[in-house]
């Protein structure tokens, strides 16, 4: 049976296999906890040990796909030779491109893998060795990450839906993993009910889109279907908007954000970190691919759903930041802040859709490059505008700073048994390292200069302003709103910093961080502070990543 070019999905396959190993060995070991197999091969250490080669492999896959983009192929379309970058496609028999293993997908895979590795280290600190069902916990996290990496590459509606659903199912279970905690159960149930409803709406939209564009599931076939008058029909509108509802739920974009605060607060903190970074990165990758590959083939401002996206972007930023201000629980505050962060990322998406690819470039993605004439080394694929570059840089920065913040919150939460912001008072005296690290992460989330968050925001807002010059005033407005929101957000981020440094500690004992927690916080600190030092190469790298996606 011909399945396809397995090598292109090898990172996800590796992770599924590793998850099975963890599950089987872990369940056997759990029969005699603390001795026998569990003593020699503790599941909680086995899982990150298997995850780390996956991260390295994902990094290698990014480099490999970048090398691939440096080649071009000449493709015969009709009677015309078209030169396109060579993008590796996972094609099943019959020429259906299920996945596009371009550098963009590979980079989001890397973000998901690295994020999960960090989440696993946080889990080591958060749960003790006697954690019930630890084999199931780590294997579910690994399955969810495999799903996120597949979603980042998926270019077929069925593949997109199934990988998102796999990610969601694992997340529902993980959210209610602490069965002794009522809030955790509430989080899992709420997430499940809202998630099922939104995913049903999304699936309904996909089926309408499938019907209105001529009965094909591939994104490029849908793109071709939408070049006909079908694009302007009501059914296409309903299909696209409903599909966006499904993706918007995963992102916690504003009208679909209602689940986020309760789930973020109730779920175990490492899982909250996972949901806010890995799950959102997957949703964002799917959204960008759906918008740029399938929907926006024409000047997007002609379509009402573009304006819906613009309004949702502004709404997410304002809602997230304004509601975050009065929060007394730090996990809830970070939940609202991540709603706002998605708003900033959406500015990048909204301006990236103006760099819509031409129809000819999409054709070879569909039919497995059947008419390749020549494969040559490309002179240069270098993507100049900043929009997508900013998106890629910001998601990497967001991974480091948000995971770092959640790592500190998880570490302090397990030690003080409290997530209340008031209990962060005087943290500077109790744990100088964690307090200083949390300060850096929060400053970076606010986008203050010497941090990674600043680089990302600078590129995203700059990209929006670049495009605004070409008759798109709404992008300039969004950039200005983004800057205003960064200032609003600085208020509640810096409030935590003020408490940590200037409020009295009320004579509490100092906190001792474990090795795993210190390692995680150090990794995230290096990422958050190092990104600006390497800003030039990073931007070059990111524009190379994006070039294979849009050209």
């Amino acid at each position, binding site marked *: 049976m*011909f399945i396809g070019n397995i090598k292109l999905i090898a990172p996800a396959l590796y992770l599924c296999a590793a998850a099975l190993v963890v599950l089987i060995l872990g369940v056997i070991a759990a*029969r005699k906890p603390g001795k026998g197999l569990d003593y020699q091969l503790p599941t909680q250490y086995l899982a990150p040990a298997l995850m780390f080669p996956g991260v390295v492999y994902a990094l290698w896959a990014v480099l490999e796909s970048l090398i691939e983009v440096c080649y071009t192929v000449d493709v015969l379309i009709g009677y015309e030779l078209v030169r396109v970058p060579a993008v590796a496609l996972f094609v099943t028999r019959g020429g259906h491109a299920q996945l596009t293993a371009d550098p963009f997908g590979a980079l989001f895979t890397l973000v998901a893998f690295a994020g999960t590795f960090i989440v696993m280290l946080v889990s080591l600190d958060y749960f003790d060795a006697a954690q019930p069902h630890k084999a*199931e916990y780590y294997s*579910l996290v690994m399955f969810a990450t495999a799903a996120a990496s597949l979603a980042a590459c998926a270019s077929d509606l069925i593949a997109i839906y199934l990988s998102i659903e796999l990610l969601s199912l694992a997340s529902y279970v993980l959210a209610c993993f602490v069965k002794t905690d009522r809030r955790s159960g509430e989080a899992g149930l709420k997430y499940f009910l809202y998630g099922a409803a939104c995913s049903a709406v999304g699936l309904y939209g996909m089926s309408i889109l499938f019907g209105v*564009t*001529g009965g094909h599931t591939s994104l490029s076939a849908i793109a071709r279907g939408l070049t006909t008058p079908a694009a302007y029909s009501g059914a296409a509108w*309903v299909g696209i908007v409903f599909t966006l509802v499904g993706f918007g739920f995963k992102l916690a974009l504003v009208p679909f954000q209602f689940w986020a605060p309760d789930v973020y607060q109730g779920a175990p903190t490492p899982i909250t970190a996972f949901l806010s970074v890995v799950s959102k990165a997957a949703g964002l990758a799917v959204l960008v691919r759906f918008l740029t590959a399938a929907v926006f083939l024409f000047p997007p401002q002609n379509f009402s759903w573009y304006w819906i996206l613009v309004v949702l972007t502004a709404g997410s930023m304002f809602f997230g930041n304004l509601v975050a201000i009065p929060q007394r629980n730090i996990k809830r505050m970070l939940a609202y802040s991540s709603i706002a962060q998605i708003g900033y990322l959406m500015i990048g998406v909204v301006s990236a859709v103006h760099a819509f690819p031409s129809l000819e470039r999409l054709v070879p993605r569909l039919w497995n490059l059947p008419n390749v004439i020549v494969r040559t080394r490309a002179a240069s694929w270098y993507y100049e505008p900043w929009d997508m570059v900013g998106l890629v840089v910001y998601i990497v920065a967001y991974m480091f700073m948000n995971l770092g913040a959640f790592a500190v919150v998880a570490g302090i939460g397990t030690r003080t048994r409290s997530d209340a912001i008031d209990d962060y008072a005087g943290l500077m005296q109790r744990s100088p390292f964690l307090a200083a690290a949390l300060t850096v992460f929060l400053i970076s989330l606010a986008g203050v200069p010497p941090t990674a968050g600043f680089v990302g925001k600078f590129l995203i807002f700059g990209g929006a302003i670049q495009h605004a010059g070409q008759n798109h005033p709404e992008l300039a407005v969004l950039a200005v709103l983004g800057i205003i929101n960064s200032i609003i957000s600085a208020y509640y981020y810096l409030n935590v910093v003020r408490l940590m440094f200037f409020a009295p500690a009320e004579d509490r004992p100092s906190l001792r961080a474990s090795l795993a927690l210190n390692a995680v916080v150090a990794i995230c600190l290096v990422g958050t502070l190092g990104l600006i030092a390497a800003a030039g190469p990073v931007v070059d790298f990111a524009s190379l990543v994006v070039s294979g996606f849009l050209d």
Partner: protein
Amino acid sequence: MAILGFEITGYQIAFVVLAGITLGSAALVVLMPNIMRAALFLGLTLLGVAGLYVLMNAAFLAAVQVMIYVGAVTTMIILAIFLSHRLMQVGFAQAIHNPVFAFAAAGVMFIFLFITVANSLWVRDICAPGPANTDVGVHAVANALLQPYVFPFELASVVLLVALVGAVVIAKEDRPGEP
């Protein structure tokens, strides 16, 4: 057969009967105070949908609908009702807290979808390179599942595995000293 001057075919009669069964029992699912009866009417609704599939020449889909939805899903719902004692007690009623608002929202949604879908252009096979594939039987489904869609087909098995593991984790009673 002509009624009131209109020519009516057997197909149309079958459609009206099946649609009536589907809609009527769907309404009863919502309106029945007893949740057990509501579940049974849900089974009837799903059977009506299966009948509509037969009318649309999709016999395989109809068989799948009967096996999965009528057979498995409805049975699971009834099982779940049996297992939760509180729901089986006499006098437990389905609660519809705000019927006016609920019906208004459903009605607005229906009118909106009806208007957009009815006024739309449905493109047929603009992308297919060859002649349109009219084989919708079991062979076509099998070919589609194991050739072009083999990747989602395999992915679905992982989804099922994760669902199983998750169900075990949630359902298992944790006793102290036992993993």
